[in-house]
């Protein structure tokens, strides 16, 4: 187990170093940091001094090592656009994205699991067929189109819910939450729904596939033979055994949701990390881009590694080398 743990962690570390290399190359070689930082009156002498001070004359390896060391300590440099510490910017924006992703995940589970069970248990019923059709429509709808249509329906036509912004927020320490005010909660509804559409269908399809498999198992037949009511068999005995893969999927998808939140955030003018990133892309604000890439990839890799390790811990068969194929 310890060998597996080490190997898996080393693998994750290697991947993160490679991502960091990519981020570093983007940061360092697409655009000159000195040109971005000095004002127009700066003399050649100023530029040379700044270049020296920033350590841009050091060797590639030295600079890369410094970049990684700083990144690990949460230092991603200064934003070119508004001259602020990148980490401060991201810290400000992170709660907005996190709450959006969290609520979208909850929606996907609350809607996706029952829908999956229904389509598996009442196969070929009208409701199940409709849900099945809904699921394929759900994967095909681009999240920004969902967002725009929701705005058209619920903000423009009906005027029920706000179309942009986060509403009022309450600060708890450095964390600013929108969950505690009515306007904050109202502002969260549409973005969360639009972000969760894809995820709902994913959860639903997984639950359906797992349920179909489980319902054929012997212990289910036995429970039925014993006279356990079929609803209880389906929703308690069978569903419980389907939940592990759902939890895995949810965990692994959080990284994807954070990345995809940038689309939703653009539609709803949601002041999260994704908006920050898209603005950085428009202004070629390389330190912010590099930091966002590193942070999102880190969350992604960390969650995947965690899931793999948990699985190996639960199921010893996965510890041998053959498990590396999907890692």
């Amino acid at each position: 187990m310890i060998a597996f743990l080490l190997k898996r962690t080393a693998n994750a570390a290697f991947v993160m170093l490679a991502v960091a290399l990519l981020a570093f190359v983007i940061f360092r070689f697409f655009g000159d940091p000195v040109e971005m930082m000095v004002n127009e009156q700066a003399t050649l002498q100023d530029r040379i001094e700044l270049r020296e001070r920033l350590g841009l004359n050091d060797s590639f390896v030295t600079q890369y090592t410094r970049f990684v060391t700083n990144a690990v300590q949460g230092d991603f440099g200064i934003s070119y656009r508004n001259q602020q510490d990148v980490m401060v910017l991201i810290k400000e924006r992170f709660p907005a994205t996190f709450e959006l992703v969290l609520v979208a995940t909850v929606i996907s589970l609350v809607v996706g699991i029952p829908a999956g069970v229904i389509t598996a248990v009442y196969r070929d019923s009208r409701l199940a067929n409709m849900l099945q059709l809904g699921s394929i429509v759900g994967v095909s709808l681009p999240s920004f189109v969902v967002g725009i249509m929701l705005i058209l329906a619920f903000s423009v036509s009906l005027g029920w819910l706000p179309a942009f912004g986060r509403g009022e927020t309450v600060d708890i320490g450095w964390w600013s939450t929108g969950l505690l005010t009515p306007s904050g909660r109202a502002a969260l509804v549409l973005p969360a729904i639009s972000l969760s559409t894809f995820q709902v269908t994913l959860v639903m399809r997984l639950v359906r596939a797992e349920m179909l498999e489980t319902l054929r198992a012997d212990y289910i037949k036995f429970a039925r033979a014993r006279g356990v009511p079929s609803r209880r068999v389906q929703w308690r005995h069978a569903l419980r055994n389907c939940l592990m893969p759902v939890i895995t999927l949810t965990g692994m998808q959080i990284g994807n949701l954070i990345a995809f939140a940038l689309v939703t955030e653009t539609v709803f003018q949601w002041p999260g990390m994704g908006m920050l990133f898209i603005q950085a892309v428009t202004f070629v604000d390389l330190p912010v881009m590099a930091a966002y890439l590193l942070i999102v990839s880190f969350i992604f890799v960390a969650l995947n590694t965690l899931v793999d390790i948990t699985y190996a811990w639960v199921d010893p068969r996965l510890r041998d080398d053959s498990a590396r194929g999907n890692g």
Partner: protein
Amino acid sequence: MDKTLTPDTPRPSRMSRLRESDLWHSFRAHPSAIFAAVLLALVALTAFLAPLITPQNPYDLAALELWNSEIPPLWEAGGQWPYLLGTDTQGRDILSAVLYGSRISLIIGFASVILALVVGLSLGLVAGYFGGWIDNVIMRVGDVLLSMPFILIAILITAIASASLPTGLKDVLAAPILIFAIAVPSWVQYARTVRASAMVEAKKEYVQAAKMIRVKSWRVMLHHILPNCLTPIMVAATLNFGLAILSEATLSFLGVGMPPDQPSLGTLIRIGNQYLFSGLWWIVVFPSIQLCLIVLSVNMIGDWLRDALNPKLR
């Protein structure tokens, strides 16, 4: 096989072989697949015949008349022929823009899948067949790519490309950049699939024998190993075609894709999004519907294909 046929029985033609195949039978038994195929064919046909059937060339700025702007769809009050789906704020016919935009979206989606297939299949074959350090390098690169969200890689590539290109060249190269940006994160899936079966095949005796008589390695890979793993590849490619169109639309919507003077569906939605609160709903709704129809039909075909080719479900 050919030798067992007597001279007077002709080989079945390609068409009749298709009509006899399991796949065709399954296709005919699935109304949703037929519906999707017809829909997609219709979309593709109208998109590629756009110059012949649309009332206006939406890219020709001289054809746009400002007094024809903001006309609602034909069935609304104030609608005008021939602007069936209305016009935008510059007097551009929405139907024409949607059909031309579909053409761009379809071409970019298709080209990026082809590029990803070519790169993925060749790298996967090489990795699985030769193994060793080549295999290691290719698969590690794949691991790194898969450890970043798909959309993030694509945005970074387009962002970097447009930041480092001069303004004039940027718009000309917008489509190739997008194709590349979408292909980069998607080749890994094909490579992994092919690699797995190449590794199995490479150990088999016929491959050893072929090596013995000095058949070229590329020949073994292309003629023996590749055909064995085409089924999963075909399903993945179909589903990825839908994903590629979606990704292109997303990138264009975010403003890092096609420029406004050669708009894809995503660009049109981005433009229409600005008029969401001014009552000009048709500018954003029709491109959105078209985009959803395209992706939906591709996904329905992909879903059907996956079930039809899955031996477990037969």
